[in-house]
């Protein structure tokens, strides 16, 4: 363990803050002037009807999109432009709505790919599998095996992921994100397309990751039951605007949120 330094964010402090962010594609305004924060150690849900700008928001946070206005403050540093590479290096990992895995590679190799930024030994030694490079490979392999155990996917570690059923693909994708040992984990609809049992498994993994590793999690989810059970705080978007922000109980009672979900008589 290393000694805590000034840069570390204590539990409960703001880890990431979105400040007045606006994003548009041509004439379509995907996000309008949204601000919210994610605190260290919490599970933060982003909810909203289809087309509310939730996925766009995740893409802004991990640098796929650059907002036209506004800033992202992460670990106290403010950036208006952050490339995905920098985000990953800074400790932001994510999964995707429609699963983005390396289809031709095995589950094990997919998760190993998550360690890319953590491996530093020279190419030459890696090719010879010798000395420090071999030790490094073994060490990372051990970390990856721990993740595989944690997610109960031992039996599929050598299977090319393209052949796996959807639920397991989602689990491998989570494993790859965990292999990065992120400070902030972004999950884009982790339970989409799953049956009840799979949803329960995934919910347990999300809670375990949060509690055992202390990983801060921001997740997008449609299943309200899941959101209300898992999350500490919820931010609600509609048509790119933020319409509510608070604990699950507060948000549930909010008239604007009820109208957005159930429709309102005009």
């Amino acid at each position: 363990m290393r000694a805590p330094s000034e840069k570390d964010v204590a539990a409960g402090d703001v880890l990431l803050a979105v400040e007045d962010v606006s994003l548009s594609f041509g004439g379509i305004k995907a996000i309008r002037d949204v601000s919210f924060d994610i605190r260290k150690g919490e599970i933060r849900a982003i909810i909203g009807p289809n087309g509310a700008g939730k996925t766009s928001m995740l893409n802004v946070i991990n640098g796929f999109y650059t907002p036209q206005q506004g800033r992202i403050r992460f670990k106290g540093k403010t950036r208006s432009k952050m490339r995905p590479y920098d985000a990953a290096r800074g400790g932001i990992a994510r999964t995707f709505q429609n699963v983005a895995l390396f289809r031709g590679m095995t589950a094990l190799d997919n998760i190993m790919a998550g360690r890319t930024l953590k491996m530093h030994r020279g190419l030459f030694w890696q090719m010879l599998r010798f000395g420090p490079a071999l030790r490094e490979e073994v060490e990372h392999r051990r970390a990856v095996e721990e993740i595989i155990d944690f997610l109960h996917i031992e039996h599929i570690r050598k299977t090319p992921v393209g052949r796996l059923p959807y639920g397991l693909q989602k689990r491998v994708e989570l494993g790859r994100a965990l292999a990065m040992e992120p400070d902030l984990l972004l999950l884009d609809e982790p339970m989409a397309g799953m049956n009840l049992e799979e949803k329960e498994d995934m919910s347990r993994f999300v809670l375990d990751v949060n509690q055992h590793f202390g990983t801060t999690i921001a997740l997008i989810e449609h299943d309200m039951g899941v959101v209300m059970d898992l999350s500490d705080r919820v931010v609600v978007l509609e048509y790119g605007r933020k319409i509510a922000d608070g604990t699950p109980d507060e948000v549930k009672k909010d008239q604007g949120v009820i109208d957005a979900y159930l429709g309102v008589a005009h």
Partner: protein
Amino acid sequence: MDILYKILIDPFLQMGQAPDLFVQTLWEGLVAGVLYSLIALGFVLIFKASGVFNFAQGIMMVFAALTLVGLHAKGVPAFLALALTVVVMLVLAIGIERLVLRPLVNQPDIILFMATFGLTYFLIGLGEVIFGGEPKTMITDALYLPRGSYEWKAFGGFVAFQKIDIAAVIIASVMVAGLAVFFQKTRIGRALRAVADSHKAALSVGISLEQIWVIVWFTAGIVALATGIMWGARSDVSFALQILALKALPVLILGGFTSIPGAIVGGVIIGVGEKVGEFYWGPLLGSGIESWLAYVIALVFLLFRPQGLFGERIIERI
């Protein structure tokens, strides 16, 4: 009946009657095949990492060879010229990434494919302006590549092995082994395969697309240089050589676009098939089989095994 005899029986009788000639034909085919494999390897590298069929691979080979010969003609010592050519290929890779790939990121593959056409004609023009259009001789001696041949007395005759061919086979084998280990066992190799499968997922785990593309185009440039030296030593260094690169197409169809071992085996099958076909069956059809037999073999493969011998099975969920 006579024609059937000539097609089905006579060629094999000839093989049996003059085994030394048969072995000689096999060897020639093997060497040609290994050189096809090298070209195909250049394609496979870029296809694996960016999903693009790089039409410019042939001209990259010519350009590398021309640079080497041209520098030497200006009085640069051979091995310094070789090192400088490697640097030129690196600069080329960085230039391609900056000016062609980066602006076209996330475009459909066909757009990138067309961009490699543009690159081809750009390199042809650039090569002609700098080095002139006339064929040149490869600096075989200056690079200490061997000349002459070994003769092996066997089968009641003799088989001749050109030393340059032996060198080509050895160099190709070493390169192939090195590349296979590089792809399978290293962090960057894993990153390369990752980029080939999904750009956005690769970005999300912190793989830098820019860096990967430079590495892969540079590697393809090195392969092109080696191929250019070997082909150049067998004929001349001229722009006509890039047509040879098209022979890599049937090799790739046979071996699979994503497989390094496939490129090797495919190359050897095509090379040997061509030479044996030309020598034993060629006279029946009027010679010239060599120029089209490879494509016919590829066509048959497309009908029965479209992913090639070693390619990844295409499984799509519907």
